[in-house]
């Protein structure tokens, strides 16, 4: 066990920003994706764990906040010097003398940026700069708060690929906040779903999928024809433009796919769709469901 959060409550003025009732445990090596709408309490959770907001309750941990590394949503640095000087000061080392740092700089293709000031770096370069600093800390627990927000699709993809590849065989625990589910599909093995400060669900991705979506789902466009065609099958909560059909038995799945193919309807099959876990967990919680572990 790396840390356990018990009865954590954070208030900003009179507003409760975060209220964790059921204990949440982060194990060594966990890759947790934290999802929730804006104001759900995601960043507040990180700030609590880092000890930079006041809270009631307790965080039992084998590590201190100083042992945690964090890539915040907004990371700013001084513009009065080249980023290589900031890097050397923060890491208390010389780039020329540190092979690991050189490896990271090269891994993130950051060599050409070293002599530039932070303000002239592009969004992607800025993110990579902080990521290098954070990774160099080699912390047992690292937080990434919306690491790819504001980046274009290609840069985002590339950045996530780099993160996945870097952490592939490493033991470090990660806590990744993101609104991009496809990122979490690559980075996370567990999910923590928050809504308006409450924990809706926490657990392994595949277990949560089984719990809220079943064995597998089939996703088709939501239109009159498809609605009519699939009217006899149960449906899961989904975005307005989609119809989601749970397939708890292979036979049902085969029946539906045959029907869809026969009618020349495009479909997507999934057994780990995070968006559907989120939507359906949120729906169940709103209808009086309990917090899940």
């Amino acid at each position, binding site marked *: 066990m790396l840390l356990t959060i018990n009865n954590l409550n*954070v208030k900003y*003025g009179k507003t409760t920003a975060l209220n964790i009732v059921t204990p949440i445990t982060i194990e060594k090596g966990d890759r947790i994706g934290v999802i929730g709408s804006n104001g759900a309490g995601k960043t507040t959770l990180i700030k609590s764990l880092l000890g930079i907001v006041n809270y009631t309750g307790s965080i039992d941990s084998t590590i201190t906040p100083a042992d945690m590394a964090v890539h*915040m949503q907004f990371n*700013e640095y*001084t513009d*009065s*010097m080249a980023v290589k*000087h900031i890097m050397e*000061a*923060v890491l208390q080392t010389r780039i020329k003398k540190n092979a690991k740092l050189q490896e990271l700089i090269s891994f993130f293709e950051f060599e050409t940026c070293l002599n530039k000031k932070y303000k002239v770096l592009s969004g992607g370069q800025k993110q990579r700069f902080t990521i290098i600093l954070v990774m160099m800390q080699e912390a047992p627990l690292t937080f990434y708060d919306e690491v790819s927000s504001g980046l274009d699709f290609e840069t985002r993809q590339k950045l996530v690929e780099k993160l996945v590849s870097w952490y592939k065989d490493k033991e470090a625990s990660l806590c990744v906040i993101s609104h991009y589910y496809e990122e979490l599909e690559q980075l996370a093995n567990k999910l923590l779903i928050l809504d308006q400060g409450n924990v809706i669900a926490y657990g392994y991705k595949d277990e949560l999928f089984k719990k809220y979506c079943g064995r597998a789902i089939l996703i088709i466009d939501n239109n009159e024809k498809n609605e009519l065609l699939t009217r006899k099958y149960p449906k899961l909560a989904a975005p307005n433009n989609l119809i989601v059909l749970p397939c708890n038995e292979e036979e049902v799945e085969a029946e539906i796919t045959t029907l869809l193919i026969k009618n020349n309807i495009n479909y997507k099959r999934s057994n780990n769709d995070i968006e559907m876990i989120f939507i359906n967990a949120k729906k169940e919680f709103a209808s009086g469901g309990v917090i899940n572990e």
Partner: protein
Amino acid sequence: MNRNKVSFRMIQYELRNVAGNPFVHIFGVGFPILMSIIITKAVASEAPDGINIGEIVTSIFLGFGAIIPLATILMGYSSTCSQDIEKGIPLRMQLFGFSEKYTIINRLIAEFIYMTFAFVIYFIVGINALDIVRPVISGVIIYLICLYVFAAALFILAHAIANLVKKFGLTYMISMLFYFGVMILSGMMGITIDKLPKGVRFISNLLPSTYLNKDIYTVWVGKSYNYVPMLQSYIFFFAISGILVFLMIYRSRRNLH
């Protein structure tokens, strides 16, 4: 890796931060040199016969030395500190494991190094361009102590202002007002203290820079001097800075939810 210490690399970083502020060079190095040369030349050319020009020139030159900590530390530090706060840099550095305490110590050392560099340039130019009266060793030591203690008080004041205001624009405006206000009240802008209205003179006498401007020549040449009013001004100045720091701590505690 222990980041909570006074480290050469962090001092180097902070020094780059100080030197990256162009206003520090303009107001902390260029302006005092220019002012001291122009004013001493102007005063010396208009001085009646029989007056000790060396005393006047040295007195003005030493007095203008007080502008250096005012510009480099009060203006320079408060503006970069507020800019950093506005951007969230102190929190970012804290999250990298740097404690606020050691960040401040490293910054103070860097500020003093830069201020020393500014003084060296100021004295090199001054000695070569002006007829500075030769000091006694104790006079030089006391002069430097007075300036560095004044600089320490200004550092505390600048830190408190930046942390209370938190906005670069407003902090910069306050420090500029303070910078020129202190210069006027200390008799550095052409109006001598005895020509100021009585109430304003009272405020002047509470500023250490006033004594650095009008009395330091006496100390410089080793004549006997009553240090009590000057000491009182330092105590007053530290007390004001201390109160602001207290307010800063109180406010930051209240703001932490």
